[in-house]
């Protein structure tokens, strides 16, 4: 077994509130191999985005890293200096965000923003860098890149901006691309194209992907392995196909069963959707024991008091439920 590209061990992220400190993320561990696409799925507030930020070294107060290790290519990076982290970002790990407009500099032409990566991280001169920026735009299939290179971000549509973001992120051939809800702000037909583009480019360059999304279907389509987060913890992680075929945690089962799926009605007629009762708990009121217990159909006394341990599943899968096995 070779060393994984990214290994996150027992990650704990603290949220400082009104005189109290909450655990926003607790005991999160996962590994991403070279060139592998890994998905982190969960609802808003489950801690998936801040997990991604911690990998990028971008946690800001009131959030802080409270424990655990983040190992990139065998080297611990959770405590490296800010300068070292800046070198890693862009060159080794890159990130794309949900809303590309906020991540692009509105006052600079997009070509220049891509070229800057080559100048900054590879010491290229500007002329050479601009030529490479044009190539990069061509790679992300921006039509007529020789003209687009001079455009400012506001002149591009949302989908085009996200393509530019991908071009910037992949410019220096990073080992890992962190994508936080990269297509949530886009229309479905555009979303499909962007996902295909990301998958294709990353496969061609051997870039590993950490994909953050609330859409289990989208993640399962793009990633080889998927972890499901609920209320700050990973409740289940499995190979992508297996998570749909044999979801093991009651939360994952509930999520998959509750979504109306295309083609289902034609096959089986209209069935009542199965519901997950209750609401997502807020961070100040996380229940004791298994955090899903107030909403779980299989809840027993042990769930209300004891945090379930990780139980191994086939193919490196993991589930945290008292009622498994």
């Amino acid at each position: 077994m070779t060393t994984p590209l990214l290994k996150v061990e027992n990650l704990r992220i603290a949220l400082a509130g009104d005189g109290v400190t909450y655990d926003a993320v607790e005991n999160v561990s996962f590994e991403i191999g070279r060139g592998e696409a890994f998905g982190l799925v969960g609802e808003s507030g489950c801690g998936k985005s801040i997990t991604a930020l911690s990998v990028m070294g971008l946690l800001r107060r009131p959030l802080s890293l409270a424990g655990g290790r983040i190992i990139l290519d065998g080297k611990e990076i959770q405590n490296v200096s800010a300068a070292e982290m800046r070198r890693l970002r862009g060159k080794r790990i890159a990130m794309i965000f949900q809303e590309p407009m906020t991540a692009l500099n509105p006052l600079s032409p997009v070509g220049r923003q891509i070229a800057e990566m080559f100048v900054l991280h590879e010491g290229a001169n500007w002329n050479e860098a601009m030529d490479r920026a044009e190539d990069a735009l061509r790679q992300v299939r921006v039509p007529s890149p020789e003209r687009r290179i001079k455009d400012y971000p506001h002149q591009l549509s949302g989908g085009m901006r996200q393509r530019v973001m991908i071009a910037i992120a992949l410019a220096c051939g990073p080992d890992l691309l962190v994508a936080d809800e990269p297509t949530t702000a886009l229309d479905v037909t555009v979303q499909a194209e962007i996902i295909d583009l990301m998958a294709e480019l990353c496969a061609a360059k051997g870039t590993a992907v950490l994909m953050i999304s609330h859409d289990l279907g989208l993640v399962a389509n793009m990633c080889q392995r998927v972890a499901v987060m609920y209320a700050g913890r990973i409740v289940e992680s499995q190979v992508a196909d297996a998570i749909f075929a044999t979801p093991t945690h009651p939360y994952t089962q509930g999520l998959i069963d509750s979504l109306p799926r295309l083609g289902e009605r034609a096959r089986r007629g209209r069935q009542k959707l199965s519901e997950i009762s209750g609401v997502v708990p807020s961070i100040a009121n996380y229940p004791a024991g298994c955090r899903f217990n107030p909403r779980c159909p299989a809840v027993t006394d042990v769930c209300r008091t004891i945090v379930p341990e990780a139980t191994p599943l086939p193919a490196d899968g993991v589930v945290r439920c008292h009622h498994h096995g």
Partner: protein
Amino acid sequence: MSLALKLPRLRLKGGTSLWVGGGLVAIAISSAILAPWIALTDPVLDANLMNAELPPSWEFPFGTDAQGRDIYSRIVWGARVSLSVGIISQICNSLIGVTLGLTAGYWGGWWDDLVSGLTNLMLAIPSLVFALAIMAILGPGLVSLVIALGLTSWSYSCRIARAQVLSLKSQGYIQAARILGYGDLRIMFTQILPNILGPLIVIATLGMGGAILAEAALSFLGLGIRPPFPSWGSMLSEARDQITTAPWLSVFPGLAIFFTVLGLNLLGDGLRDYLDPQSTTRRG
């Protein structure tokens, strides 16, 4: 999440100015209400030339004026004038400003253009000059003072109300109210107004300080309250000849104006933080 951190600081800031400002304003209001009981002498009738221009002493804590009247008692009674001018004129300003701002923002079109133009016009003319002109026409006196100040500085509340309406107009609950068949006025006054009251109260409070200053200025110029009944501005006006020989004549009314206006401004700032929509949602 960042709110969680900001909140304690906000609360403290809102808290201090709210309490200090509220305290100062409460003192001014209670002295106006309690004037017949806490004043030592009658502010007008108890003139005694034997006691003229005495410096502060145990008998006359703030000294006496040229006619031998107790300054302290005159300031306590004068609070009635200053505060009622401030409050009544601000109620007028708010009513005019909010009505115009609400309707202009909600209806838009030519009415909005008209109101916005009028607002800009009002902002371009110094309101004191405007009030002076009105006073010149109506003649001096309490009623004309209130009218002059009540008609000349509604542009701030109008602007605030209009801007707030524009930002609320497209909210779902406003659309829902229209769909439920609510009339325009009902929407403006039951759906929009309660949600924009916070900033309007702040503006009115700050405006009250301005009105008290304007009253002082107009009275100082002899256009406001006529002697012998005291107002803080007319007391200052009468004292200007003796400012070197009997400084207490101008210092104490000046301090009364200073602390009341300061109190109103602090109260306005405190209310702004307290009524901040973010902190109200966080309270829940």
